[in-house]
C-alpha cells in the first residue's frame, strides 16, 4: 500500500476511535447540570478557534496574515448583513482573490 493510502486508512481509523470515545464512555448518562452551560459554549469556543487557526496559522507553527484575512473580514460584514451562507463564503473568496490580484 502506498504512503498516501496508508495515511488515509490510519487517519480514518483514528478518527472513528476519537469520535467513539465520548459516546462509549458516557453511555446514556446525562452530564451534570453544572456543566450544561459549558457544553453549550463548546461550539462557540471551538468554532472561533477554527476560524483564527485556519486564517492565521502558517507552516511550522508560524502566524501569518495574508489577503484571506480581508476576505474573512468581508464575510463577517456579510453575516452582519444577514446574507445567506453561500453569499458569505462567495464574498470571502471574491474579496481574497481581488486583493491578491491588486496587492
Amino acid at each position, binding site marked *: 500500500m502506498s504512503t498516501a493510502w496508508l*495515511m488515509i486508512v490510519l487517519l480514518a481509523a483514528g478518527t472513528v476511535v476519537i469520535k467513539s470515545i465520548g459516546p462509549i464512555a458516557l453511555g446514556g448518562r446525562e452530564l451534570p447540570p453544572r456543566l450544561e452551560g459549558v457544553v453549550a459554549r463548546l461550539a462557540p*469556543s*471551538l468554532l472561533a478557534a*477554527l476560524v483564527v487557526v485556519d486564517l492565521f496559522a502558517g507552516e511550522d*507553527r508560524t502566524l501569518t496574515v495574508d489577503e484571506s484575512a480581508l476576505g474573512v473580514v468581508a464575510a463577517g460584514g456579510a453575516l452582519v448583513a444577514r446574507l445567506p451562507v453561500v453569499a458569505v463564503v*462567495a464574498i470571502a473568496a471574491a474579496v481574497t482573490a481581488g486583493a491578491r490580484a491588486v496587492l
Partner: protein
Amino acid sequence: MRSLQVSNTRETADEIGAREEASGPRGGSGEPEPIDLKDGIRAGLPLVLPTFAIGTSFGVLAEPEIGALAAIAMSVIVFAGAAQFASVSILAAGGSLASAVSAGLLINTRFLPMGLAVAPALHGGPLRRAAEAQTMVDASWAIANRGDGTFDRQLMMGATIPQGLGWWGGTIIGAVAGSLLGDPATLGLDALFPAFYLALLAEELRDRTSLASALLGAAIAIALVPFTPPGIPVVAASLAALLGLRR
C-alpha cells in the same frame, strides 16, 4: 447577539423547538411534530454549496499529491476537511507518514469534547452510540446544538447528509476537473474554510457568555499556535467553554 445571527439562512434547533411548542397541544393545532431526520436535512441544506466549494478546493489541492482516487476516497472515509487538508499538505511537503497521520488526528481531537457533548443525545448500546457518533461533522454538530447544553440527534444525523453530498461531490469535481480551475489561491478558495466556520460561529453567539467564550477560545488558539503541534490550539480552546460553568 441576535443581530449577528443568520437565522434567515437556516433553521436552528431553537427555532425548530419553538415551532414544535407552538404547534403542540397548547397551540391547539393538532399533533406536535417531533424533530426528524428531514428537519436535519433541511437545516443543513444552505451549507451544501459552501461545503461543495471547499470540497472542490480540497480535490484540486490533493489530486496532484495523492491522486484523484485517493483524494475522493479520503473525503468519503475520513470526512473531516481540516484534517484532510493538514495531512495531505504535510505529505506534499515531504513529511513522513507518521507526521501526516498524527497532524490529522490531532486536528480531529476536537471530536473528543464534541463527542462527550453529544453523547447523552445518542441512542442504543455502546456500538450503536459509537456508530451514530460517526455522523458527527463540525457543521451538523453545531446545528444540533440546542444552546442549553443538549443536542438533537436527528438534527445532527440529518444535517450530515447534505454535508456529505457537498463534500464528496466537491472533492470529485475538484480531483477530476481541478486542472481546468486553475490555482486555488488565485481564486481565493483558501478563504472559504475560515469564512464557513465564521458563518457557523455566528449562529452560536446566542448570549454574552457565548461571545466571551468565542473571543477567549480564539485568543487561546492563537496564543498556542507558535508553541504546540497543529490541532492542539483548537482542542485547548475548548477550555474557553468553562466560562459557561454554573455557580
